[in-house]
């Protein structure tokens, strides 16, 4: 909003005040995220800038907290860093284990949420869908209902969701469940919970993409002799793919950042990055958490860039001009 030429002096003052306010709000939004990056290179175990850091003395900076991420839980951190050392990092190091678990859970939760969510969004976007509003409300509700309520419910349910040892069901599902044959304390329990939490995001992004979808394209494809499968994969899918991918990224981030459900339903041996951070902040707060935070900020910046590019591509494909 540029200032009109007829603005009075008072209006000019107000306009510049307004710009300053906006600047401060942007600072409030972004400063806490950027501040962790320099802090994570602190050479001292402090959560603030040391005088050496402020003087830009290289001695005030170090990579020791990133090193901690590799060596925490390492059986022999002091030995030379050869192939055995690195394989021990991969196999034993606490943070690396947490990262592997987080990625694995996130991957499966994303696949579940994206496949089920996309198919459902296709149904929901059809004009003839019965009880559309009610179903939509139900499917979005995992995003609205407080996570603590979902986690409490799931912890009750998962403790009851067991298969009898030795039964046919335990032969099929046993490998996914805990040693007791229950959903509680099992990795599957966490994956399923995270998928449920990610579904609203997939539904929202895919239905948004489909809202600008020209239904006559389907009829055109069919009139040209395409069967439903060809129509879906050759016509519908390429057009909604950007929405599907950004929904999947949202679902992945939701799972990757989720800690409450993990705290309530995962077993004590199931560490994830957010759970490690949560415990770290609660108990002994060390700048190693800032190093993890920095890595996560880099990842989220990458994801944001990906989603923005996808949205632009989607708008272009659907012929929406402008933003």
């Amino acid at each position: 909003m540029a200032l009109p030429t007829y603005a009075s002096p008072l209006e000019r003052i107000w306009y510049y005040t307004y710009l300053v306010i906006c600047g401060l709000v942007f600072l409030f939004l972004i400063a806490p995220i950027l501040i962790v990056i320099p802090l994570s290179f602190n050479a001292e175990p402090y959560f603030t800038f040391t005088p050496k850091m402020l003087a830009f003395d290289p001695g005030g900076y170090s990579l020791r907290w990133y090193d901690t991420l590799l060596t925490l839980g390492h059986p022999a951190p002091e030995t030379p860093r050869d192939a055995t050392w690195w394989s021990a990092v991969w196999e034993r190091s606490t943070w690396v284990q947490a990262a592997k678990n987080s990625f694995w859970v996130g991957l499966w939760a994303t696949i579940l949420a994206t496949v089920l969510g996309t198919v459902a969004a296709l149904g929901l976007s059809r004009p003839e869908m019965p009880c559309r509003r009610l179903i939509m409300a139900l499917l979005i509700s995992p995003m609205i209902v407080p996570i603590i309520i979902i986690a409490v419910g799931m912890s009750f349910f998962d403790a009851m969701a067991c298969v009898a040892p030795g039964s046919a069901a335990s032969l099929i599902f046993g490998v996914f469940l805990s040693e007791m044959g229950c959903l509680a304390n099992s990795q599957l329990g966490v994956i399923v919970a995270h998928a449920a939490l990610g579904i609203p995001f997939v539904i929202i992004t895919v239905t948004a993409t489909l809202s600008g979808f020209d239904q006559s394209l389907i009829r055109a494809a069919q009139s040209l002799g395409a069967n439903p499968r060809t129509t879906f994969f050759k016509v519908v899918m390429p057009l909604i793919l950007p929405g599907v991918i950004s929904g999947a990224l949202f679902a992945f981030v939701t799972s990757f950042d989720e800690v409450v459900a993990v705290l309530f339903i995962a077993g004590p041996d199931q560490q994830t990055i957010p759970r490690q951070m949560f415990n770290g902040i609660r108990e002994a707060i060390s700048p190693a958490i800032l190093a993890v935070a920095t890595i996560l900020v880099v990842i989220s910046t990458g994801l944001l860039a990906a989603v923005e590019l996808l949205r632009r591509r989607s708008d272009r494909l659907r012929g929406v001009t402008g933003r």
Partner: protein
Amino acid sequence: MAEATPVLLTTADGRPLKAALAAAQARSRRRALFLVLPLLLFVLVTFLIPIVYMLKRSVEHDGFATSATATVAWFAANPGFDPANPPEAAFAALVSDLARMQAEKTTGIAGTRINYSVPGTISLFKAGARAAKDLQPPFREALLAVDAEWGRPALWRGMQSAAGTYTTEFYKVASDRKLRDDGWARGADNERIYLYLFFKTFLISGAITVICLLLAFPVAHLLATLPMAKSSLLMILVLLPFWTSLLVRTTSWIALLQEQGIVNDLLVGTGLITDAGRLSMMYNLTGTIVAMTHVLLPFMVLPLYSVMKVIPPSYARAARSLGATSWTTFRRIYLPQTLPGIAAGSLLVFILAVGYYITPALVGGADGQLISNLISFHMSKSNWSLAAAIAAMLLAAILVLYWLYDRLVGIDRLKLG
């Protein structure tokens, strides 16, 4: 003159057109429903059934009913007894139950169950159970000699109400009602911890919503009126926090606001405060409000932005050309047009704030805890039914707000980024 009979339209194969259309529509409805069905089933199993389970848990506790079978049977036979003066038979049943509880090591479970309505009963039950096998008739006098508490009418009322598997007791406890000698009554003002915390949660959420609205309004306006290239760049500043891990943001607020943190260092460095007078902004209510505002601000900016984006600037210009001052133009012309965005953003932020858990748990300290933290506390103390009852009350509040959101804004208008 005979009325003209309407010509019945038929399809090529001779079926009435109306019936054929209805059949075709039913088929396409089924097809649409069929696509949604897998997800509906998944959400049913992973989300709805657990919540129903939780609701069941909130009215169910058989800790006393299964371990004090003789007393429960006596209560069933004498529903109208006088709690102030239970007869010898009731005491006899209770003493036999206590003796068995001691043998079966279920005293703790039964005592815990009664403890919800009558505080202090766990130790009473344990002492009673230890003494039970040596007691001789008359049991009434014998048990009262162990502890006069056994004659309290409130205790007998509590045991009677715990005799069934299903009870509304946990809701009474969670709404600060107390079991007195003459029945359930409102707790004294200094005992009303649960409703107080609900009230406090709503108050803090309201405050955060207002702060978010005040901060988001100018920013959304700027984003909506700037040229595309500039606003896209600035939008990143709003979206990046949205994409950044909640725990990262909480960590950085700790680094910024704690007593040895950056903001305090800065204030001391500039001489605004002394080293001894460092502000405590973390691990208290201030920390909770600041960190939650930061986390929820994007949820306010985005709906406001999408509404402000489509407000034509010509209305404001028309108002100005008709002689309105800039304040009048804002108040009478611009603000009313942004109301849908204000409603959408405020409701969303409020709903998310009311159920917040992680940030208050990490930075809230003693006075920054919200209702979710209380649920978590009771879960960690194995007070499952009480936790479930509080969660059910929170869920009811959220569902009302969600319904309101759907009526005012519409769920399908929910957008991300």
